[in-house]
């Protein structure tokens, strides 16, 4: 790995600037000619070229050609967001023999043309500044070598539903060792509890059962059922995973699954697998096809009569002394397939669930109509055990509801169609069926035809939202009050049974999984993918992938497909002997480290990854492969002894100076973290949210990198306003807690600056997620309005007062 010190006086700087039209995306607003002419005037820029599409092959070829012919040793592309094409252009310059880290991007699309369309002149000015800032950074760029780490060729699947099982089987078939973690007693997930599957009406367990058995028997798959994920350390290719194996009070290797213990057990308790409609014994398996087929004792119910121990006899499989056991495994990739939960609408009193015995959920209905279910496949009413003759199905209970879950739960329309077809085909004319719906969503293969089948069976589809269900206290029949949009009037239907198609919601414990694996969750609570279109299977944490409904609700075919997709993604990691890591990590200058002479270790405390060690009287050391490159330690080091490669103090200060070269009092200097706030700002551009063009933005990997000195320097130079953009507290930070470290630092700084007479609104910290483009635009609009309200004169006066104090504080900087 290269050290900054060994770069002495480099050869003469020869910077090439490539300005992209992006068709009319940039050129339609920004005056490209002006940018080109301006770039030519910037010192050290020896070559400027415009392209219609720099990212296309001809555009890339121009760059390669110029590097060779013009002997360029730095390249700046002024085009879209670096979050879009930085990797592309790094590859381009590498192909021409230049180190990829001698490349820098100026974002003049998301940050200029797209967000200031009605002010082309201001957009052009902002683009010029962006080019100047990029060149300023480019001058100080240093070549870096990519780091390689070894890869453990094994994978962990968290969650053994249909998606996780498919991922496991695919990886195992590729020859990789796979660990499956399942927190219930059996793999199989929701699918194992279903009766039939739409639109083919094939028996769910009949098609899933064999796959479960395959997982259980595959020599490359080891299942940890009834186990929890405790802790994950490490990084892509090298995860150390701690699993807690919860006690079953049955020794897996000795249990033959014969079930003799169950037969003698005198205790029954409600079976969760049956939605608590049926019972299971205190020693039992949740369902007959469970994998692994190992019995478990529920100590909450067990009366310790030990009949099971007697009948088990010489096999000696039952062990009441079993304790939770922690297991550590090492894997190279992790697939999260934790699935979803079903919402139980106890808090929607108007529908009477939990109050009226004959109002049930679809999942309960599923267990009733299932031949192996608690009623042996008979659909009966809870109030009197009689068969219902009129059944009303109500769609979107909790889903598509602004007061509950605003999203569509994806598969409820289809499973309700399945339920009504099953009912009609089972009981024919003997049952009248109503479906109350907002829209029937049947866009899958064969789904619309299935909807037709339901209609042909004579099911009454009523388009309208149900307002209320009343119960006749004597008969326990239900009166459904709804609107009928077709009639344009309210209607009432009396039904013997009401089935609620309730929302599917994020799995309980998702927050815990997110914390352990450092994942982020969307506003709906499901896991956020790295890119909604192009990286739908990748988590923001490298080496972690998603499969199934945990990332967003999907039905069985989609979950299966995603499981295989995630397996393929994971294989791209674990099939390699070594994994390359970006070298934008922290490096400690041992000669400046205070820990040599005093007990310091601040960096050790502040590092979110525990990637720094500081032994007494020795300089602190960064564990290269553990460093994620957030730069928090760099900002915290009181001696400025730590440098983040590619985001050095000198480089960022050069960007700040370039940004505030002209009329600093009219400018908002924004320092944005790469993952959330910069992405949010990009989204503001992509969404064409217009905001004032006074902002000049600098990208850092994490807000934790924002050094106090950056803010002081900005105000010393006369900046009007300063904004630090970060990921939302508490868990959104992509470096675990960089945003917290930044908050502590900036809170103190803000207090100090305010005391020194600066208007508090001039320094703001805002939390903007990657999804909050509108929020970013609003924040900038607000800050701009505040800046205008303060007025240039007041800002200048405050700055004049502050400058001597700040200069004194910045003395140690050159």
């Amino acid at each position, binding site marked *: 790995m290269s050290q900054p010190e060994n770069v002495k006086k480099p050869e003469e700087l020869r910077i090439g600037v490539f300005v992209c039209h992006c068709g009319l995306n940039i050129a339609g607003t920004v005056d490209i000619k002006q940018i080109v002419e301006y770039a030519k005037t910037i010192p050290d820029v020896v070559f400027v070229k415009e392209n219609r599409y720099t990212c296309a092959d001809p555009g890339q070829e121009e760059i390669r050609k110029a590097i060779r012919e013009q002997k360029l040793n730095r390249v700046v592309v002024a085009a879209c967001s670096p979050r879009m094409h930085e990797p592309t252009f790094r590859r381009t310059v590498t192909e021409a023999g230049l180190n990829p880290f001698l490349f820098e991007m100026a974002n003049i699309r998301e940050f200029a043309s797209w967000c200031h369309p009605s002010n082309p002149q201001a957009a052009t000015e902002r683009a010029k500044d962006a080019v100047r800032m990029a060149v300023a950074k480019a001058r100080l760029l240093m070549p870096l070598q990519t780091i390689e780490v070894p890869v453990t060729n094994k994978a962990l699947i968290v969650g053994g539903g249909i998606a996780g099982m498919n991922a496991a089987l695919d990886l195992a078939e590729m020859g990789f060792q796979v660990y499956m973690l399942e927190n219930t007693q059996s793999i199989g997930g929701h699918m194992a509890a279903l009766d039939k599957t739409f639109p083919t009406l094939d028996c769910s367990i009949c098609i899933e059962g064999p796959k479960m058995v395959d997982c259980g028997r595959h020599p490359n798959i080891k299942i940890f059922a009834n186990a929890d994920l405790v802790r994950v350390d490490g990084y892509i290719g090298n995860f150390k995973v701690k699993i807690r194996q919860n006690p079953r009070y049955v020794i897996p290797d000795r249990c033959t699954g014969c079930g003799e213990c169950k037969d003698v057990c005198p205790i029954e308790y409600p079976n969760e697998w049956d939605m608590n409609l049926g019972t299971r014994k205190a020693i039992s398996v949740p369902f007959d096809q469970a994998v692994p087929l190992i019995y478990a004792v529920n100590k909450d119910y067990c009366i310790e009569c030990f009949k099971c121990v007697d009948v088990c006899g010489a096999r000696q499989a039952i062990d009441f002394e079993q304790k939770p056991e922690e297991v550590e495994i090492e894997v190279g990739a992790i697939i999260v397939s934790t699935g979803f939960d079903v919402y139980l609408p106890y808090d929607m009193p108007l529908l009477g669930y939990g109050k009226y015995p004959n109002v049930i959920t679809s999942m309960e209905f599923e267990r009733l109509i299932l031949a192996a279910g608690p009623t042996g496949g008979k659909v009966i009413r809870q109030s009197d055990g009689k068969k219902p003759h009129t059944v009303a199905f109500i769609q979107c209970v909790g889903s598509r509801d602004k007061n509950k879950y605003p999203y569509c739960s994806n598969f409820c329309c289809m499973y309700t169609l399945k339920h009504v077809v099953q009912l009609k085909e089972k009981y024919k004319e003997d049952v009248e069926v109503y479906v109350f719906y907002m829209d029937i969503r049947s866009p899958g293969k064969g789904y619309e035809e299935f909807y037709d089948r339901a209609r042909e069976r004579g099911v009454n589809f009523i388009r309208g939202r149900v307002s209320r269900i009343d119960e006749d*206290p004597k008969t326990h029949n239900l009166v459904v009050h709804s609107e009928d949009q077709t009639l344009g009037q309210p209607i009432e239907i009396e039904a013997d049974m009401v089935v609620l198609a309730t929302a599917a919601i994020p799995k309980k414990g998702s927050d815990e999984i997110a914390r352990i694996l450092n994942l982020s969750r969307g506003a709906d609570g499901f896991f956020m993918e790295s890119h909604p279109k192009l990286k739908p299977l990748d988590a923001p944490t490298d080496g972690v992938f998603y499969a199934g409904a945990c990332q967003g609700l999907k039905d069985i075919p989609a979950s299966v497909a995603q499981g295989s997709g995630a397996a393929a993604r994971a294989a791209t990691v674990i099939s390699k002997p070594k994994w390359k890591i970006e070298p934008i990590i922290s490096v400690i200058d041992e000669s400046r480290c205070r820990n040599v002479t005093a007990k310091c270790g601040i960096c050790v405390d502040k590092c979110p990854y525990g990637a720094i060690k500081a032994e007494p009287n020795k300089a602190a050391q960064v564990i290269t492969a553990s460093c994620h490159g957030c730069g928090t330690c760099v900002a915290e080091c009181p001696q400025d002894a730590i440098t983040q490669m590619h985001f050095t103090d000198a480089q960022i200060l050069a960007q700040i100076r370039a940004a505030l070269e002209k009329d600093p009092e009219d400018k908002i200097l924004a320092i944005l973290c790469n993952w959330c706030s910069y992405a949010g700002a990009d989204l503001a551009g992509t969404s064409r949210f217009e905001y004032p063009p006074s902002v000049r933005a600098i990208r850092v990997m994490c807000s934790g990198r924002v050094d106090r000195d950056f803010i002081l320097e900005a105000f010393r130079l006369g900046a009007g306003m300063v904004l630090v953009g970060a990921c939302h507290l508490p868990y959104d930070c992509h470096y675990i807690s960089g945003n917290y470290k930044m908050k502590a630092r900036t809170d103190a700084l803000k207090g100090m600056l305010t005391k020194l007479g600066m208007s508090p609104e001039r320094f703001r910290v805002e939390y903007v997620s990657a999804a909050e483009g509108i929020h970013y635009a609003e924040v900038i609009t607000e800050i701009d309005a505040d800046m205008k309200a303060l007025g240039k004169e007041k800002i200048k006066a405050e700055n004049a007062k502050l400058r001597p104090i700040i200069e004194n504080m910045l003395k140690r900087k050159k």
Partner: protein
Amino acid sequence: MGSKYLIFLGCAIPYRVSAYEISARKVLSKLGVELVEMPEFNCCGLPLDPVSHEAMLILAARNLALAEQQGLNILTLCPGCAGTLKKVNKILKEDKTLREQINAHLKEAGLEFKGTVTTKHIMQALTEDIGLETIRKAITKPLTNLKVAEHNGCHILRPKEYIGFDNPEDPQTLKTLIEATSATCLDYIDETECCGAPSVGVSDKVALQLARDKLSHIKMVNAQALITICPFCHIMYDTNELRIEKMFNETYGIPVLHYPQLLGLAMGIPPEELAFNELRVDATKIVKQVTEGAKQE
């Protein structure tokens, strides 16, 4: 104990359902609540909203500004008044531009709205300020054998974002208050449905049909009385009960009590002082059951 409010009576109560006011004053005074009169109050504003939203805001803001001058919170008996004052207070507190616009009008009367007082309906004051514990302690004649039904009505609960009290889809406060008297509060179909009053004047037939449906559901569970907390709901059931019986050729005979009347009975206040004689539907039977039956038990 020792709570002090400005009493806001509104229009309907003093003119049409004085029994509500009489019984409420009795009960509150016995619970140690001091009510301060404020003759300067004008209409809450609600009836004017469909005609002029601004006029409604000004009327309500004037009331609130007057209360602010006194430094006292407002207590109302009518849920419509409470709802309007709460809503306008919230709107004006949150909308600076609108507040300035309304204050420009109030300035002519030498007033300014600041948003410093709160408004509570008697039911909210009873549960939140006075407290169920105090109420339970004041009960001397528990209504153990009485089975009643409740009707909340609309304004006391809706719109939720302005009222911020109880759950409009599953209201519990009135039930809790009734049960504090040891009476049984029965569940029935349509509990949260409309009494019909808003439709009076537009279509009396619709209004009476709605009230009739509810009365029949209440009868179905054999409730001995219906308890209301809104003057309009009370008019709908009490004043109109005979008319409904005639119109649908049915008999209900369900007395309709204002909640303070029920509470007053349980607190041992003589029925004469609770204005039972002003009810259209004869309540003698249950009053007797309480005053005499309690002794027998």
